[in-house]
């Protein structure tokens, strides 16, 4: 023996891991309890994260339904009389061909250079019938769909009416009341500056163009035939109303001018309702922050519980660690063994916890009728969270085990 020149004892990493595995297997109950703690903590964390993603998806979907879906395309302000119609004849087909378009239609306000007087047809009504000067809108059947028009009575005019320039009209429900029109059959017709139009229906709803409830609607073909093309200089420029799927408005707004007039897209004026996107994202973000904090708190509580359990196990294993110290183990060896056990249990608990957490998210989402959203890339680090939880939970017990006095610990060795 050469005194202090004795080579220090050493524990190879593989041996430390082997010892840790063997110790875990030798104490299945304690290992299961510790691993189960990690499992619960990680499962809670994953479930909270998954539910946050799922709930955020729900919130976003609710807000997405309120995203702008309406686009208005108008031609340039004409500088001369009898300016050409700014849209091609097949404008609706061109726009409808764009992915994301729900409906589109052309419309304009009919201006005749003098007040438009609408009254129940003098041929069928008494002279005392009231008259009004409402806006008269010429629109295509596609426009009716785009405006969200729905009749409370009668029917909307359709492609047949449009192709045959039928003299039919729709009367807004508010205007109908003021004109004393109670139903399309009473009276049958109205008079617009001397031209009779059969009342096809009464518009009771027009979600995207509520002004239609105070207007008379004519097919564009009939309006053109009777009153001529739109008088752009009078401020009644024709426009294309486009309705898109939620979230597609911005893209359609960029594409529509090219679809309508590929040669001079910049001459068309496109307007989209301002985007109320931020509040939705803010709500989702606030919720996410709150619940992620809850997830972290749960994980922290779990780590503390695991640390307590591990410390208790270390206390029970005091004689074993004292024996190892007596046989040459350094404090670092004991600490590394406890840490390795804790990390292995953390890893196993993390893997199982991630699976259970995802299953919980799917089950809860299914029960709520939501779409479960768990990003796969967010799941990869979860076992590492288990490892980290195990490591953090193992630090204090490892120190506790490392500082066991061999002689004191050996006295507590249970008799075989």
């Amino acid at each position, binding site marked *: *023996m*050469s*005194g*202090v020149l*004795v*080579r*220090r*004892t*050493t*524990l*190879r990493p593989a*041996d430390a891991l082997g*010892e840790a595995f*063997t110790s875990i297997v*030798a*104490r299945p109950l304690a290992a299961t309890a510790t691993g189960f703690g990690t499992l619960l903590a990680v499962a809670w964390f994953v479930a909270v994260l998954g539910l946050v993603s799922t709930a955020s998806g729900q919130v976003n979907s609710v807000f997405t339904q309120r995203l702008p879906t309406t686009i208005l395309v108008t031609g340039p302000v004409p500088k001369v009389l009898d300016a050409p119609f700014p849209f091609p004849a097949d404008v609706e087909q061109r726009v409808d061909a764009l992915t994301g378009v729900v409906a589109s239609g052309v419309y304009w306000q009919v201006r005749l250079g003098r007040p438009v007087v609408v009254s129940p047809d003098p041929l069928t009504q008494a002279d005392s019938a009231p008259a009004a000067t409402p806006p008269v809108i010429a629109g295509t059947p596609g426009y009716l769909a785009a405006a969200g028009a729905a009749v409370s009575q009668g029917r909307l005019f359709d492609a047949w009416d449009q192709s045959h320039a039928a003299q039919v009209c729709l009367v807004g429900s508010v205007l109908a009341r003021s004109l004393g029109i109670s139903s399309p059959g009473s009276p049958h017709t109205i008079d617009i500056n001397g031209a009779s139009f059969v009342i096809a229906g009464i518009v009771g709803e027009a979600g995207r163009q509520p002004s239609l409830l105070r207007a008379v609607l004519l097919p564009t073909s009939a309006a053109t035939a009777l009153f001529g093309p739109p008088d752009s200089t009078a401020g009644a420029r024709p426009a294309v109303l486009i309705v898109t799927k939620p979230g597609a408005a911005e893209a359609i707004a960029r594409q529509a001018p090219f679809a309508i007039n590929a040669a001079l897209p910049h001459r068309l004026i496109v307007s989209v309702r301002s985007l109320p996107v931020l509040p939705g994202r803010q709500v989702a973000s606030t919720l996410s922050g709150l619940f992620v904090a809850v997830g972290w708190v749960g994980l922290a509580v779990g780590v503390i519980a695991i640390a307590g359990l591990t410390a208790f196990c270390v206390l029970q294993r005091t*004689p*074993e660690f004292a*024996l*190892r*110290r*007596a*046989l*040459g*183990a*350094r*404090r670092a*060896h004991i600490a590394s063994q406890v840490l390795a056990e804790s990390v292995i249990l953390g890893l196993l608990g993390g893997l199982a916890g991630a699976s259970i957490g995802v299953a919980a998210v799917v089950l809860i989402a299914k029960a709520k009728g939501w779409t479960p959203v768990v990003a796969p890339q967010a799941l990869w680090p979860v076992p590492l969270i288990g490892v980290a939880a195990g490591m953090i939970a193992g630090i204090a017990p490892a120190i506790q085990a490392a500082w066991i*006095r*061999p*002689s*004191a610990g*050996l*006295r507590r*060795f249970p*008799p*075989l």
Partner: protein
Amino acid sequence: MTPHPPLIELSGLLIRAGRRDGADAPPKPIDLVVARGEMVMLTGQCRSGRSGLLNVLGLLDRPAAGSYLLNGVDVAKLRDRERAALRGRQIGLVFQRKMVLPTRSVLDNVMLPLRYLGLPRWRRIDAAAQTLDRVGLATMAHLMAWQLSAGELALCAIGRALVARPSLVLCDEPTAGLDQPAAAQVIGVLANVHREGRTVVVATADQLAAAYSGRSVRLGEPASPLDFGVRLPITDTQAGSLR
């Protein structure tokens, strides 16, 4: 040529009284010299401090006072990792209660000290198998420790103490609780170790065990020179003395 210092040299050593030792802990300072290759029996009454002295000799405890030179080195100046290194490589410890890990195999228990020597597994197995053969447990290598009898447990514990080929073997009551044949087997193994030139210190109350020793030191006696040399049945040699 410089002569080797004694392996163990205690001077005015006072053992720290544990709670269990209480007032019975030896109050008197111990002076003891053990040369290399000696086999020394520490005897004395119950609670005379034999186990406490072995803990100090095995570097498991620090003395309350006095000096302990191990191979000429004052162990009080050693850091924890150096003490661990000495325990792992140079000191073999056999504890009174035959402390083994019950859920490990006999082979695993014997290999345990080798884990901390950085040896590859095949060398650990080889060394442990040889040691088990030496103590007569070769056929029980793969039994679980809890399956062993008391005598086999004692041999397993001795095997574990010998596997790293230490130069100092410390045994605390190795024959306690054993029947005579088992005790004789244990003493025989220790005697063989001594014959190989290793230093063996045995704390025992077993007079039969003490009879096998070349030297016996009785603890807990009055600090009178007249009381030093009385040993049963083998008296203390000139190599060591107890004040």
